[in-house]
């Protein structure tokens, strides 16, 4: 009986959409762990030096509330 068609060479197996997709996911995961990549849960602001050096410091600085006054 005819043998089945030979598989493609190993070096080209990864060069398919699915193979490239897996490679991208592996790279993404590596970046997430190594560099801490992710989505910010809130805004990043910069606290002015004047506030940091004021007597009340950060305590009196009014940050933007995210509105989590929930409960039931």
């Amino acid at each position, binding site marked *: *009986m*005819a043998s*089945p068609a030979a598989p493609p060479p190993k070096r080209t*197996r*990864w060069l*398919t959409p*699915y*193979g490239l*997709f*897996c*490679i991208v*996911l*592996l790279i*993404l*995961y*590596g970046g*997430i*762990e*190594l*560099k*801490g*990549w*992710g*989505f*910010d*849960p*809130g*805004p*990043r*602001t*910069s*606290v*002015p*030096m004047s506030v*940091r050096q004021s007597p009340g*410091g*950060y*305590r*009196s600085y009014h*940050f*933007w*509330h*995210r*509105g*989590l*006054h*929930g*409960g*039931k």
Partner: protein
Amino acid sequence: MRVKVARCPECGADVQFRSASSVLCVCSYCRSALARTDVDVEKIGKVGLLADVPSLLSLGMRGSAYGGFTIVGRLQLDFGAGTWNEWYLALEGGRWLWLAETQGRYYLTTPVGPVRSAPPLSELHLGHSVHVPGPDGGDLVMYVAEVHQARIVSAEGELPWRVDPNEGLSYADLSGPRRTFGTLDYGTEPAGPPTGYVGREVELAELQLVGGSGPEPERARLPATRAARMECPSCRGALALRAPDSTLRVVCPFCASLVDVSQEPLRALTTLARDRTITPRFALGSQAQLRGTPYRVLGLLRRQIEGSSFFWDEYVLAVGQDGRGGFHYLIESDGHFTLVRPAHLGDVHGSGSTRRYEGHTFHRVEQVRTTVTYLDGEFPWEVEVGEATLVEDFWAPGYLLSLERSLGPHAELVASLGEYLDAHELFAAFSLKESPPRPTYIAPHQPNPYRKGYEHRKHLFWRAIVPLAVLMVVFALRNAIMSTRIRFDLSTAAGAEPAAEHIFLSEPFALGKLSRAAVSFRLSAPTLENSWLDVDAALINDEDGTAYQFGAGVSYYAGVEDGEAWSEGSRSAEVILPSVPAGRYVLRVEPSWPVSRPCSFNSECGPLGSCQDGQCLRSCSASHPSCGPGETCLGDRCVLQALPYTIELYHGATRWRWGLFFGLLMLAAPLVSWLRMHHFEQRRQEDMVG
């Protein structure tokens, strides 16, 4: 080789016995059959003229295989559906071999003596297994492929036993393992025991032939061929045969007569009904190369399942130009195309619904009785309209194994192996411009078009998921060693509305082991019960003022309703701050909580309480507290007790969820492929049953 010369008692010509094992010789002048006796020769009859059966072999040819042999005799037999040659090969030392020649194929056998385990001829049936002594002394299990009675048509040269010209012989052809071939020769004694001959199919080149007939060896002669052009005996139209040495039946293209061209004079057997609706898709005479083999279309026949309107077309393909390489078949059935070649019956093992052949396992599809309903072109067997066959099919991916039992007077059992062809590849091979027809069902042996993609994706999945798992483990270990962990134990204030004085500001702390990593902020309140706690927080870089702002909240509610306990919410929450660099940080936490127990209805606040603005108002006194679990009497009002809670920071948190999510994403593609492949197989099973 010592030659004994005798004188023919009929005509006086010299006759030679070249082999010591020869018992009979045919006088080449008067065709007398002369048997060797102790003293001289005895005439036992006359032998008819040789039939015109083309052959590459001839008397006197020598071969160097098997230690050297000479072709010293020929027997021609006819079983009613064709005449074939059997050649007697004399080896040194009195040994001899038989070489049967039929339709361009050669079977070399050696006598193994009486086969006492063989049943009488009347008890033999197609497929019957027989134990036959092997040529090397072992035991072979062989299967009956044909049971026939043949007549000796003619002979020439020498033969190893006495034969009565024109006598009938009974025999059974056998097929054994590893392409062995055998014959049980019952001769004129159908009760047995038969004489056995065992051997195998050979290529002519294996015999290493030289020379030709005559007193001196000649160069090998070109084969005698029948005329490629003949006249139809019915209408005198020209019959141009494409395989003149093999064709036995041809349909006249002018008058549709089915003509027997196996012998002169040609005979018109019947006039076939013309069916103008049938046009060969692959024109008769057209050529193509399939799987590296050149083919030529010789004929077309249509088989129909008895009692059904289902039919298929079979194209007879000559291997090479003229069929000397044998014959294969191209089956077309409702848009499916299969290339069929003969298989060796003796190498088909198994019983019931399973067969094994050439390392593959085949499963039974069906057994049907078919009839030939249409003929066109040339055929290498004595085909006729109405020819009936019992066909049993077995399938394996891409292949169809068929066991065909002819139901006519010349019953035989043959095996064939079909390979599913891609229709586009086939049409391209025949240079057909039109698109192939679309099948309306899935053929049993049709390859699953999704299998290759599934195998590829499955293979890649495992090659990707393992590194992903390794990465997760490696990073988990790294973070376990190098992450910075900070913990703060805080508490709410009972009976107090959240205010500025409740804002928590930590002392500066360092996040330094990892240059940049995500920070996990985890809020937990293990004793939270039917209440909630929210925080607005900021992680502030004390060096450059960058503030990472976020919020987190926990809520947990539980109760019993209709005797069944329920709960909802969670006592812990986690927020991830991405890509936080090492440095000195301060954590600012602004909590908020309910003073009294949260509620929606008055009934939730007890018999003495009421629900106002989402909180229970229940009066109490020091002497009569009457507050619920988790509450305390403060002033004259039941309020929630102070709630302890914990905040933990991890700089270098392992991102398990991303790893699991990516693993699921990787799984999606092979899972979809598997579903498609599985669905195709389900449809195949449904179509087989239907």
